[in-house]
């Protein structure tokens, strides 16, 4: 499967971006274009997930997967936090911020995996999109609690009104609104209502994904090139943590009885790290944490690892365990 992955245009565009960054090319994707593609991708997968769930009908699996995702997002930051402190030598505030990223998810990793899995007849169930949305933000809360725990005794002012702000952020974060909103619209519209808008959201999907991964490659590559924050220990964590989280996700997914495709998807959600919702929230809620660390680990190390190797690896793990 790794070979399939490496010759898929989606991955090749990522590598092209990566290469351009390392070659210090002046290639750049306008910010507005990148954001537009990101909005498009979230709406498209939300819609398709909603339509599929409406078609398949609700099932107990959906509920199980949602609960599993919620728990994973809350819990995965905990081991990450301690690994980052004791092995990674980070300050508590940085460790908590990084940990939150690994509890949350990467939409593009999920989407890329979905494309690659579908090609192999392992398409995840439609409701996994809802799980994706559910997993976006709870990790932010865990991360901040871990920071407070790590800093105990120090600066606890401004905590009260912050909790209100935080819950607001968790529920109204742009990614959450887009994914859940489009998911519900997909459910309400159903297959027939989706028909007229399907061309835009289905015909163009894989092409847009290619262009977006070109952008991701550029951004991830530049992060790596420009970073001076990345110790060897952090790089190791950036590779081992997704393997650990992915295996954990696989076990949970199989444990609650998901089909192979959905279990792989849950594994990938566990393994992936956020690079949009969480960084923005962390910058605001934990401004002392260094974005140079969490963005570089998430975008520069874990994202490429997951895209190039991880997806195949988690598929393999589920197939071994399943």
């Amino acid at each position, binding site marked *: 499967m790794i070979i399939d992955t490496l010759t898929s245009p989606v991955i090749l565009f990522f590598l092209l971006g990566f290469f351009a960054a390392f070659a210090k090319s002046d290639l*750049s*994707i*306008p*910010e507005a274009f*990148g*954001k537009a*593609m*990101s909005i498009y991708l979230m709406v498209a997968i939300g819609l398709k997930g909603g339509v599929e769930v409406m078609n398949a009908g609700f099932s107990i699996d959906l509920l199980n997967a949602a609960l599993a995702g919620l728990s994973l997002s809350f819990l995965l930051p905990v081991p990450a936090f301690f690994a980052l402190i004791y092995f990674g030598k980070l300050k508590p505030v940085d460790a908590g911020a990084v940990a939150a990223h690994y509890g949350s998810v990467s939409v593009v990793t999920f989407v890329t995996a979905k494309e690659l899995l579908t090609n192999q007849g392992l398409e995840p169930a439609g409701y996994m999109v809802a799980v994706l949305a559910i997993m976006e933000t709870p990790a932010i809360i865990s991360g901040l609690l871990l920071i407070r725990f790590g800093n105990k005794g120090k600066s606890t002012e401004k905590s009260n009104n912050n909790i209100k702000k935080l819950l607001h952020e968790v529920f109204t974060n742009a990614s959450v609104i887009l994914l859940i909103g489009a998911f519900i619209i997909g459910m309400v519209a159903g297959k027939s209502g989706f028909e007229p808008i399907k061309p835009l959201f289905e015909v163009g999907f894989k092409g847009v994904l290619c262009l977006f991964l070109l*952008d991701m490659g*550029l*951004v991830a590559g*530049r992060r790596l090139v*420009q*970073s*001076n924050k990345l110790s060897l220990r952090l790089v190791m964590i950036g590779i081992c943590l997704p393997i650990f989280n992915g295996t954990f996700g696989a076990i949970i997914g199989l444990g609650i009885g998901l089909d192979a495709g959905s279990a792989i998807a849950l594994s990938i959600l566990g393994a992936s790290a956020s*690079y*949009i919702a969480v*960084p*923005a*929230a*962390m*910058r*605001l809620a934990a*401004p*002392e944490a260094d*974005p*140079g660390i969490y*963005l570089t680990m998430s*975008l520069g190390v874990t994202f490429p690892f997951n895209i190039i190797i991880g997806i195949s690896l988690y598929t393999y793990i589920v197939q071994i365990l399943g």
Partner: protein
Amino acid sequence: MVETVIRKRIEILVDTPLIPHIIDLLKKVDMSGWSVIHVDSGGGRDGEWSDDDFTGASAKSIILVIASEEKTNNLVDLIAPILDSHRLLLTVANVAVVRGHKF
């Protein structure tokens, strides 16, 4: 000739996601007007960056405020402690404005 008075022109270079937090501080010292300007790229001790980064987390902006000297002093006192931890850059200059009572 129209009469002008001297007011302060404050520039705060700030990570874009932190803007709401700084606006809250402005309001605390009773400043009611501000403008936000986008910063495209830059360099500092942390290396170079540019805004063609869809994550938005590393984008920077300048908050521009025209205010009276008194309010400005209050703001500087309020912001000084977090200048380092929040990676802010704060400058204050004199400018002449027409009808200064607004600031």
